[in-house]
């Protein structure tokens, strides 16, 4: 119990300290050390799982542990990048290529502080076992990340921040109504003080009133779905993720979207327990397909590579929702896909940050000759592209294939055909953008621009992409075990992941 509190409070307290701390070096040391301690504590949770108490507000279950670990790993990677990035920001002024005016990135203390508070809030989401508490932390993630998005304080990032703040807050307010509807649905359980405690609800899921439960599910799906970027509630996401600084975009896409999905997954578990699995699964399949479809349409004609990555996040959230909606092995696929997508997308956003810094443009048309100008970045960019489109040696292939298998197993042939077709379209759209960027001769760089690739700018992405590659070849037993348990929690039948893994090509 103490360790859980420590995981949540340590980053928040450190963040508040950083907000008022003058020393530049001290703040960066604080950021890195909190990231390392957080990862160590998370690793400790894998070894010794504290018992879930029935009325505990905080707890570690398999889904929470998985998303907490993803968040923690990404945070360490992004904070290493951030330290280098902030150093670079000190040494150069930016020229906004689109609008042609100079701007200076503003206070770094706010940046580091908000990043740490953001970590604390996300940790809170993954460890909350009380729907009310989960809501409070979820809204806190919005508020802590908003100042991060407008770090550069130019027109576009302000516009993105406003949309993000307002749309997410409205969405989350709808999820709060979902909480209250759930409380009404749980009236029959009685026991006033633990109405919204997750484990208590799950234990008595059969007694929940189905009509109120369904209403609660719809409101939470719409509310947390807004945050997660499920179409058609996705409109804030492409703006926020493409205008935020690279490390922030990596955290938003890689860590925050998963956290939002956790809220939906928890109420889905209650629907399954209540015998309403079909209802929630159908909605998840529908929104999943719509999300993949929407992102396919926008990726095909996307000429801005960071926006392309943002739309790709919508696609992958769609795949996760689809996997959970299909049930069976699909849930295993979704769990594995959450890991793969998060690590790959974070790596890609960091690499895109390097490209943006070197070429001072976010448009595909302006970037040429990446292979010559930034060789390591180019390799990572191509590897990330292969992984995000689900190409064979990467684990993404395995998870996307598993979701397809779930569709075929369940007899959803139309869904399977649509899924494959849209993934194909997205592949074509991304090839058209990524390959021309790597080829050709780089433009002449002005002499004052940093052209070399410092270690901080490539090492985090390389490690993240490496893990996805490793998982594609060999999935460690504990990870597989955790995803199996997640799968078992919403499947009546036994998890079939082992069968799928053995058939791996």
């Amino acid at each position: 119990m103490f360790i859980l509190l420590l995981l949540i409070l340590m980053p928040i307290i450190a963040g508040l300290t950083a907000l008022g701390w003058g020393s530049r070096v001290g703040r960066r040391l604080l950021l890195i050390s909190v990231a390392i301690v957080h990862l160590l504590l998370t690793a400790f949770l894998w070894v010794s799982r504290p018992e879930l108490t029935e009325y505990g507000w905080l707890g570690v279950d398999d889904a929470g542990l998985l998303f907490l670990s993803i968040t923690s790993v990404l945070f360490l990677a992004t904070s290493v990048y951030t330290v280098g990035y902030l150093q670079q920001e000190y040494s150069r002024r930016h020229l906004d290529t689109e609008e042609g005016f100079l701007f200076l990135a503003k206070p770094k203390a706010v940046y580091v502080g908000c990043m740490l508070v953001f970590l604390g809030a996300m940790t809170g989401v993954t460890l909350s076992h009380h729907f009310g508490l989960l809501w409070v932390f979820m809204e806190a993630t919005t508020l802590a990340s908003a100042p991060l998005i407008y770090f550069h304080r130019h027109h576009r990032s302000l516009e993105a921040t406003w949309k993000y703040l307002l749309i997410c807050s409205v969405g989350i307010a709808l999820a709060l109504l979902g909480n209250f509807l759930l409380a009404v649905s749980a009236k029959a359980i009685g026991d006033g003080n633990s109405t919204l405690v997750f484990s208590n609800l799950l234990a008595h899921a059969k007694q929940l009133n189905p009509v109120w439960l369904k209403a609660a599910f719809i409101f939470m799906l719409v509310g947390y779905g807004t945050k997660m970027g499920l179409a058609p509630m996705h409109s804030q996401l492409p703006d926020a993720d493409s205008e935020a600084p690279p490390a922030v975009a990596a955290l938003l896409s890689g860590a925050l979207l998963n956290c939002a999905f956790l809220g939906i997954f928890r109420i889905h578990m209650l629907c399954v327990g209540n015998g309403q699995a079909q209802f929630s699964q159908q909605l998840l399949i529908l929104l999943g397909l719509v999300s993949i479809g929407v992102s396919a349409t926008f990726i095909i004609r996307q000429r801005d590579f960071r926006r392309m990555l943002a739309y790709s996040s919508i696609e992958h959230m769609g795949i996760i929702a689809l996997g959970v909606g299909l049930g069976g092995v699909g849930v295993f696929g979704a769990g594995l896909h959450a890991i793969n997508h998060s690590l790959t997308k974070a790596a890609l956003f960091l690499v895109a940050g390097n490209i943006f810094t070197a070429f001072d443009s976010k448009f595909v048309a302006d970037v040429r000759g990446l292979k010559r100008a930034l060789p390591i970045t180019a390799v990572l960019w191509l590897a990330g592209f292969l992984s995000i489109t689900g190409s064979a040696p990467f684990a993404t292939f395995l998870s996307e294939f598993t979701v397809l298998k779930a569709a075929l197993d369940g007899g959803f042939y139309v869904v399977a055909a649509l899924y494959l077709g849209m993934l194909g379209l997205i592949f074509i759209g991304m090839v058209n953008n990524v390959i021309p960027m790597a080829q050709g001769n780089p433009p002449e760089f002005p002499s004052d621009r940093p052209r070399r690739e410092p270690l901080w700018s490539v090492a985090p992405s390389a490690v993240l992409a490496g893990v996805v590659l490793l998982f594609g070849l060999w999935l460690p037993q504990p990870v597989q075990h955790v995803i199996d348990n997640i799968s078992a929690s919403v499947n009546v039948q036994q998890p079939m992941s082992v069968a799928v893994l053995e058939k791996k090509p």
Partner: protein
Amino acid sequence: MSSLSDMILILVVLTNLILIGIGDVRLSIRIVAVQGVMLGVLPLLMFDQGFDFNLLLIGTATFVMKGFVFPWLLFRTMHRANVPTESVPMLGFTTSKVAAVLLIVASFWVGGRFRELTELQHGADLTLPVALATLLSGLFFIISHRQALMQVLGYLVLENGVFVFGVAMAHEEPLLVEMGVLLDVFVAVLVMGVAMFHISRTFDHIDIERMTELRD
């Protein structure tokens, strides 16, 4: 549930209607403040089984925050960001009012349907329709106004709708969580205010409709 709380719920719906019918920003902030004060009183009328310290605390905190702190923050933002004092809804006033009435009718219809489907608890006849009507009015308000500050007001009205439902139907929500919710909304208004300040400084206006650089 007393007749007094029913009266407050009806007043809440009326404030929604008034809000949609006016375009004066200062007056709108005051009306939302009045709505907040009424919502602060609501928990105090829920003493079904005698005195309840939690409800008293929630009511007082809501009363102070929604009735006084939020309006103060908004007026301060208005002053600092040079917000214009008028905002005309995109659909015009008449259409907006008609739409608002339709939203209320729809809310009462949905509330009635829910009463048929589930056996609602003690006399909560008005709660669900009023909560829905307030929530939808807030959403409508956000969509129909282009000015950033009016959108924040819409968000507050929407949140009020959720609050009505929470207080009347689910007052088991623990005190700590209620306070967390209130704190989040407070910080949201604060951060939105800061964002508005930066928007007005960068763009020289806070007209969201004119912020159209990000699109596909």
